[in-house]
């Protein structure tokens, strides 16, 4: 108990001691201090910015400064404040307030001007990097002339904007406003490469390039190239556009999509496509394997279209032999011959439909090998009976009715 009491007393003493001590320190003192002379208000970036306050008494004061880059608090016992370089190197308005304790002694603003004596710097931007020919689309060139401390030069600084396109080389002057000088550079009618640069006094910028793409293609013509006119299902037709150009005569961009609609004699819509190289889009399509007439028209979707051409394919064959062997269980179609009476190239499709009592059992397909296709109807799978057989190859259709299979 005693011990506890003792501790309590000691504790209370310590607290009392603290209270007295602190009260003594915190005790306010009133001093009348006035600012006799305020500092000058204009400075140049990068030079030392010294704010001199002449005070009526020598006391320690604090200066709160605020610029667009941030705020800070400086302390001085002489009334002389040196701004840190992070603030003094930046152009702009700086506001300050001088404090004695919590009391405001003075308030004001200073202006820091860009330093024209330092070497000039240029910051330049160009975009977008690609535009379309024809004078409607443009790219924007923006130039910011700056002093050595990255401060934009004052408005109305003269900026030369230069560009080169084909054999045009031009130079214009704009005056900077709101820190930047800029211009919209509209495209010319031709496609090509636009090079841009700028200059302020002796300082020159790097080179910027802007791609001027051709405008939309105009309508065009198409034609076809064939090895022969026969419907052999093997050779390839090449379809080709004329050189696609825009309304200003520029050859349209490489890789432009051209789609060809091919409408066959039955009205089915076949499709092929190509992409342009030097304005010409080539598409390929296989010859049909039967007599046909194609109407072909090409499009750049929604933008341009071609004339319609018609190409006809003659049949390679009017008829072909069919041989039934082994009590009709082996059917040999062919030899299929082509227009010069040569064997048709391997791979012509032969289709055999097997029909029993008006009910189609199966469709067998085979491609020809050395002009022939052989079908074997095994007894295990096709029991003896009467069958109808339909054979189709190269657009020629043949029917054999009531064929007995042993």
């Amino acid at each position, binding site marked *: 108990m005693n011990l506890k009491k003792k501790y309590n007393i000691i504790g209370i003493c310590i607290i009392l001691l603290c209270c007295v001590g602190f009260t003594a320190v915190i005790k306010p003192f009133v001093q009348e201090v006035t600012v006799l002379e305020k500092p000058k208000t204009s400075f140049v970036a990068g030079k030392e910015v010294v704010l001199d306050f002449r005070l009526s008494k020598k006391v320690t004061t604090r200066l709160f400064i605020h610029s667009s880059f941030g705020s800070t608090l400086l302390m001085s016992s002489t009334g002389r404040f040196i701004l840190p370089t992070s603030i003094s190197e930046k152009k702009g308005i700086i506001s300050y307030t001088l404090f004695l304790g919590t009391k405001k002694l003075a308030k004001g603003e200073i202006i820091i001007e860009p330093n024209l004596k330092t070497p000039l710097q240029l910051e330049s931007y160009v975009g977008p990097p690609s535009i379309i020919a024809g004078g409607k689309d443009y790219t924007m060139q923006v130039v910011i002339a700056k002093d050595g401390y990255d401060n934009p030069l004052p408005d109305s600084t003269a900026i030369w904007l230069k560009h080169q396109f084909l054999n045009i080389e031009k130079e214009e002057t704009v005056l900077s406003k709101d820190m930047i000088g800029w211009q919209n550079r509209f495209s010319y009618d031709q496609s090509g490469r636009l090079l841009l640069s700028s200059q302020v006094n002796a300082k020159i910028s790097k080179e910027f390039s802007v791609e001027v793409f051709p405008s939309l293609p105009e309508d065009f013509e198409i034609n076809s190239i064939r090895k022969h006119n026969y419907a052999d299902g093997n050779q390839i037709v090449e379809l080709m556009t004329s050189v696609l150009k825009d309304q200003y005569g520029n050859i349209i961009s490489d890789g432009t999509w051209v789609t060809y609609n091919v409408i066959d004699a039955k009205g089915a819509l076949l499709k092929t496509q190509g992409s342009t*190289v030097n304005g010409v889009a080539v598409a390929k399509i296989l010859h049909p394997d039967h007599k046909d007439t194609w109407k072909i028209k090409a499009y750049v979707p929604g933008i341009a279209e071609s004339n319609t051409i018609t190409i006809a394919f003659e049949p390679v064959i009017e008829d072909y032999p069919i041989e039934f062997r082994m009590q009709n269980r082996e059917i040999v179609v062919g030899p299929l011959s082509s227009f010069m009476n040569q064997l048709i190239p391997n791979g012509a499709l032969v289709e055999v439909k097997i029909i029993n009592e008006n009910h189609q059992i199966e469709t067998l397909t085979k491609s020809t090998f050395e002009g022939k296709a052989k079908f074997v109807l095994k007894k*295990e799978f096709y029991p003896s009976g009467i069958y109808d057989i339909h054979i189709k190859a190269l657009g020629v259709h043949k029917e054999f009715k009531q064929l007995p299979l042993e």
Partner: protein
Amino acid sequence: MDKFTNKYLISALLIGIVFHGTSIFFTLESTYDALIHLFFGNHYANDWFESWNYSWYTGFTVLGYPPLVHQSIGLLSYIGGLKFGLFSVAIIAVILFITGVYRFALVLTSNRVVAGYAAIFAVFSSSFIETLHIFGQLPSVVGISILLHALPEIYLWVKIGKYRYLWNSLSLIAVTVTSHHVTPIFGMVFFIFPLLGMVIMDASKEKVGSYQQVRLRIFLKTFLSSFKRIITFGIGSLVLIIFCILPYWINTKNNPITQVPIPHGSRDNFLEVTSSGLVFFLIPWGILLLLFPYIWYRFFSKRYLFFGLSITLLTVLGSGGTTPIPRMLLGENAFNILTLDRFTLWASIMALPILGEFTYRFVEGDIKEKNIKKYGAVYHRVLGGLFAGGVLFMIIFTMSLGYFRPLQPQKIKMLPILNFLKQDQHDHWRYLPLGFGDQMAWLSSQTNAMTVDGNYHSARRLPELTTRAVERLENSKYRGIEGIGSLQQFLTVPEKYNLKYVFSNDKFYDPILFFCGWQRLRQLENGIMVWEKLNVPPLSNILPKDDVPTFQKMMWGIIPVLTVLLAFIINIQFIWIHALKSKQVGFPAYFKFKSYYTGLTNTVYTTSYLWAILMIILFGIGSYRIYIKNAAQINPDNAIKAYYDALDMKRYKAAHSYLDPKSNKTLDQYMLEVAVTDGLLSSYAKLDDMSVETISRSDSTARIKIYTQWVTPLEKIDKTFYHELVKRNRKWFIQPLAYDLDIPPDQLFATNKTFFYNHGRRRITSEQTYHEDVLKQPVLEVLSAKIIQNQDQYSIVGELQNVDNVPADVTITGVLYNNNDDQLASYNVKHQIKHKLIPKEITSFKIDFENIAWLNNEEAKPKIFDPDQFTPIHFDENPVTFNLQCVGNVATVDLFKGLVINELNIEGEQVNGVLFNSGLQEATIPQLLVSYYNKDKALIWMDHSFLSQGIRPQRKQYFTYTLADISKVKNINDTMDNILVNGLPNALISKKLVPNRKEDYAATQLIPIQGKGFHYIKIEVNAYVGNP
């Protein structure tokens, strides 16, 4: 205690360290789990007290797994790197295990020779070999080993009651807890309870003189007298289990595992799934299978009675889904979460002392005498030889399992990937490895870059993953619909996860990457293909994390290592005395209860023989049945199945051997035919199922129809093939199918084509890309777009044109809103679009609003794989308005546009046609995009179809497409006010770029058809080029 060193134990340790210590260098890295533990070790090595790991799953907490083993790897990695840490810990685990088994056997049998034999068998235990060398479960092994070390101390505490033993045992329990959480909890039940039973039995015996006289009353009385000690130990271990890994329990409570059960082989019916039976029953039991009667006979002797109950329970639980008992015992929930292989592991470890005892009796005890007396010495030696042979066979078989049936893809050289991730700020995005197996953890350990995937599925948080029974995205092809479905969601909306790079080690995934709009960047020198997605923003500098209080982090970082130190200090005396025999000490208390091995009853002797013979017969029958099932040419069905299996495994030589030898199809010709076929079916499909139907059959011929189901990354393909078979020389052979005889017209031909190249950065600098190196985004124009409702599914369909002068890669995000402009759903276009458009090219597109499949647990999951199937989002309110954000980026690759529609016939609902490849590259997977229009020629629906075979240049391919029934399709909204292209309004672009659009163009592309709900269709073609 005997002052002679136990030479059996020393041999076991030496052999164990040499055998396991050298072989881990060839096995451990390709085990299932070792690299995961390595990854965790790396985590602790990098930041010991951090509980959050950003590398996997968009961040996860490591508090979900007791850290001791991982932290040990981390600590040792400071000496010699991560792998050094891993191997060192593995070797320590081996030592702990062998000594643990020795001590366990000693307490059980009180015979140092028997315990020595048990230690030798511990080295060669097939379940231990499997757990270490195939599964790589280090924490589990360490946990059980330490628990075994604790058992003698627990015995002595309960028997003698000296506090020293209590501290010893509790300190060891603490180490067990911090190395593996499941081991002490179940170990309590399966090891410690029976041990306590044995102690009480021993104490009772002391009272009454022999085990025979111990009755229930005496047993209970003894139990009550020891109750205080038991309860002290019980409470002590409970406190340790809770306290030592307190952050784990807090984490478990706060983040309950939401992961749906992931199938595990140990839960299979081992009789049905024989591979699981092999791995989870036959191998772990190994040679013990032959000794079942002896093991049970011994364990059901009175002293070991409780161990008998325990091993019985363990055996039953370890049998997985073979019987319904484990499911009933554990309950549905625990059954689906626990991997049951651990029960078999524990059972087999529990049986080791008995195996040791048997060997002792067989080698130098009464069984030997009996054998010699009954059948002679030669017989005994032969029997011994056979037994040893069986043990060796099991060891070699288990060790080589990983060699003959690789569990993992070939070892991947990680350096090129690491270099790629380091270069050019590639690690500012997430990446996804595909086809890496468990090596993905090794990759993650070495890079700062993060992945959306991961290899510790309990820690997952993204609902896209937790709702799927998918182990990893990386191997999703083995997980059917759920796997591919998960993967597709990540690949379709990669922006959501800042996922920009995919490392593909399995070309199976390439098509899905392509059709989701990804493009190949380049192949690294280790053969890994890097895919990238344009228009994905980089990760923010500050990523979200679930922080935990500092005290938890401190506990997690300090306690585990502290438990080891404490255990070491507390047990050092024991180690010192026992290992170095520095002091003569008395035998421990349990040595009083030594069994004397005499008089094995004839019943047991005979039963054991019969059982072993039965086992061998069963083994023989099993092998024979497997042979018959696989004997390929016994009947037509087998021949066909074998043929397709061979095709699926790409064993073409074997496939050719099933072809009719009289068909003149030489192997060369066959290989050539195979070499020229490519496409979805032959290059990107896995055979999932097949069923065979015999159409007709005679003695020597048969006609067979085979239905095959193939899993591809894009869709399920059902294909029916017809084959004719002939019987020659009592073997069935397949008649080869006809192959494409078509001859292209040109031997050599030339085509002009525009290629593009984008420098990326033109300056070699680590700064941000200079603004003049950034290309303008290609301008796209949306020609039409609308919300369409088809039954309960909402979609946005539309058409879009690249109106710029450069090729564009297109990403479209659609957002649906309700009446109050509240967002209902947002999704990207997946594969119903041409993602790459050359200048002025048009594509139709459809965005399906896909939900995370089966978010609702009650929904029935389909049993069969169907990657094409998807779960439409269920809307509580009806979508009324929509917006579209289309983004174009300059594309320079995958601009193949060579497919031509060369023939077209429409018969009813069938569109038949011929595609012709006019380009210079093989179109590996051609895709048809079919748009449906109403009678006003307005787009109302879109559909797609993949062709299963590729088309080589100048070749053609027949296709058939069945038109859809869209009579229920409803147009909800077609106002195009809220469509943005590269952030600018679409209307503005329309006006500026193509002011005088020829509106009649669209109609020229349409094919009139009277269909169900539509009047016209349009067909567009797109193709994936596998080898550009």
